[in-house]
């Protein structure tokens, strides 16, 4: 177990290193002057030269990448003469346009995105799993057909369309909710939730559709398995047979799937945040791309990659914990 964990962590570290190298190469070695890109629009000659010096763009490429890695571990200073911008570890870069370390910018936005993702997942998982189970148990009946239709619809509808409809109905037409504006949880939990409920629903509906389909497929498979038949033949209540002996087999694929879904959800979150005007990492990404703030884009990409890798490692461990047949080796 410990051995497995160490190996997985080592493998994750290698993946992340490779990711950082590829991202670094893509953004910094692509055609165009990185200094111009980092400095942003309306940058004059003097500031451009300053940026170039701070970024160390005259150093050899491998040295630049090494400084980047060093910054991640130990932090770094971007200096040009007396002008020093300090970037504490883990330093993902420095945004010269906004004059802030990228890490600080990401951390500022993180609570918003985390609130969105956690709330959506808290809605989507129970919703998706119960819808999937229900349609598996009511196989061939009207309930299943309706469920299949609804999940297909959720599967196929883009998040911005759902978001728009929700905004129009609940904020503009019914006026039950204010147009969303982020309020930190620490400030007022009630208003935090009130403002986030529509983005949660929009994001959750799409995730729930995926979970529902996977749960349904898994449940249909386990419900006809021999060991389920065994417990029926030994007089257990149907509810008990399903809860104790069918559900687990049906839900294990979901662990792996949820981890794979993380990437999809992050993409959907970019749209959701933009749509509802939530100042999260997704919105930051869009803004940075629009204003060509290169260091921020690199930072976001590395962060997103890390989240995906960590999620998959955790999923593998959970899978092994849930299934005694999986040997961690």
């Amino acid at each position: 177990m410990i051995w497995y964990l160490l190996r997985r962590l080592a493998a994750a570290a290698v993946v992340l290193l490779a990711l950082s190298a590829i991202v670094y190469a893509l953004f910094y070695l692509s055609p165009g002057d990185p200094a111009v890109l980092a400095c942003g629009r309306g940058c004059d000659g003097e500031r451009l030269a300053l940026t170039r010096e701070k970024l160390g763009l005259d150093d050899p490429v491998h040295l630049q990448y090494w400084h980047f890695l060093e910054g991640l571990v130990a932090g770094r200073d971007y200096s040009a003469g007396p002008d020093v911008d300090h970037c504490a570890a883990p330093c993902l870069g420095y945004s010269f346009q906004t004059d802030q370390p990228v890490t600080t910018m990401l951390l500022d936005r993180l609570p918003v995105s985390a609130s969105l993702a956690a709330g959506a997942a808290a809605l989507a998982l129970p919703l998706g799993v119960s819808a999937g189970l229900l349609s598996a148990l009511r196989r061939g009946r009207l309930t299943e057909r309706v469920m299949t239709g609804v999940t297909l619809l959720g599967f196929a509808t883009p998040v911005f369309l759902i978001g728009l409809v929700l905004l129009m109905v609940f904020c503009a037409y019914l006026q039950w909710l204010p147009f969303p504006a982020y309020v930190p949880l620490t400030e007022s939990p009630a208003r935090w939730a009130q403002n986030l409920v529509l983005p949660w629903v929009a994001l959750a509906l799409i995730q729930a559709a995926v979970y529902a389909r996977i749960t349904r497929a898994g449940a249909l498979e386990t419900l006809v398995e021999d060991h389920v038949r065994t417990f029926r033949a030994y007089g257990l209540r149907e509810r008990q047979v399903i809860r104790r002996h069918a559900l687990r087999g049906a839900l294990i694929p979901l662990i792996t799937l949820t981890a794979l879904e993380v990437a999809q959800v992050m993409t959907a979150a970019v749209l959701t945040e933009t749509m509802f005007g939530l100042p999260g990492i997704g919105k930051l990404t869009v803004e940075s791309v629009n204003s060509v703030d290169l260091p921020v884009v690199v930072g976001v990409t590395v962060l997103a990659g890390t989240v995906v890798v960590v999620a998959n490692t955790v999923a593998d461990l959970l899978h092994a914990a849930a299934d005694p047949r999986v040997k961690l080796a």
Partner: protein
Amino acid sequence: MSPVLRVRDLRVRFGGFEAVKGVSFDLAAGRALGVVGESGSGKSTLAMSLLRLTEGAETTGEIRAGETDVLAAPKAELRRLRGGRIAMVFQDPLSSLDPYLRVGDQIAEVYRAHTGATRRAARAKAVEVLDRVGIPDAARRARAYPHEFSGGMRQRALIAMALALRPRILIADEPTTALDVTVQAQLLDLLGDLRAATGMALLLVSHDVGVVAGNVDEVLVMRDGEAVEHGPVGTVLRAPRAGYTRELLAAVPRMDAPRTAAPTPGEPLLRVTDLRREFVLGPPLRRRAVPAVDGVTFDVRRGETLGIVGESGSGKSTLARLLVRLLEPTSGRVVFDGRDLAGLPERRLRPLRRDLQLVFQDPGASLNPRRTVGDSIAEPLRVHGEPDPGGAARALMERVGLDPRRARDYPHEFSGGQRQRIGIARALALRPRLLVCDEPVTSLDVSTQAQVLELLTDLRHEFDLTLVFVSHDLAVVRQVSDRVAVMRHGKIVELAGTDALFESPEHPYTRELLAAVPTLDPRIPHGRGGALEAPI
């Protein structure tokens, strides 16, 4: 004495298809009834319907278990009946237990559902019954997961689950089909002991007449959903009245059937010397090489049939694959017609491939489902650049007893026996000199099995074939082989002429295997008398 189970005119219908067509029987306490039949005869449906486990089926007639009218029983009563009065043991011990829960907990859960016992008492009960069915160190093994049990132990665990509830009737649906013959003998003994000790009635369903013969009082022969014959086991097996029973019995390969004399052996076609094959298993740092074939030496003579028998894990299938170089040996020599196949590069091996063919166990899985069977048979001919592969394929189909007009059909449109004929036709397409058959009749019904074996015997003469016939079934091997090698743990423990091996086996393991084979004589219960002290 009134029967514990009374079945009258039982009919089970799935949509328009009637799987059981009016079966009636009685089962008294302490007695055993065997239900035999081939696949599709309705015997499993019959067993399942006794507990109303046939989903989506319309069941009519009468099933009375003691006072309970099973077909009319409300849900709560049905639950008490299931397990409590009638318990069931299923065919596949690998999948019949919940893989996610400990074996003891599963037994305890069922026990609690029926008795309302405390968690603690139920656990103790689980250990007690596991011990009763012969699981060594039951207190510790109760905490194991099903995958940590062997096939035989899992089946014992399921019997223990039944035993905990002290049912009046035990239904065993092909309880030993997935198990090795020595393990099968031990389990059948266990069922017999439990029946004697608890007075429960046994309904034993099997495709294997031999399994039923020594373990039941009465036998019911099923075909196409009907009971074609029903009577005391001795009468039915010795003097069957129904024509179908006679056919079925005639098709069962017997250990005592007369054999044709072996042909005079030619010089060796294949010489195997100290052949080894290892597989590397285990986690890193603790990787170890496990020998599947552990140094075997033998010859296969031109024109003979060499049988290779062994239980699961003995290395016989690995050996079969080594002989035709589907696997590369770790060490040793496989000299075919003067050339060593081991270590020969694939390019130089290719012209030899047409001389070495393999017939696989599962004809369903070894044919490409997306290709017509004519295409599958013609494929090797095409690869080797033969003219008119399509015409040759149709001629081969005709030779193995299939309608050549069906060359454009797909594998799923054929029965199991027909699919194996297709597999044989494909193997023969290039007129090989050595044909290795790996369990070629294992997945077939006895009557189909007999036909396929007959076909192989005919083809052997016609195509001047040398055969290596790998099987777990001693009676089948005895029927087709001139010489037999017995494998265990990757080694050949005994190799002798078929008659010598079966009449005076030298190795203790060979004797143990032979003693475990069920015979058709109901007076001889199997297993007893065999040297079988080792637990499963």
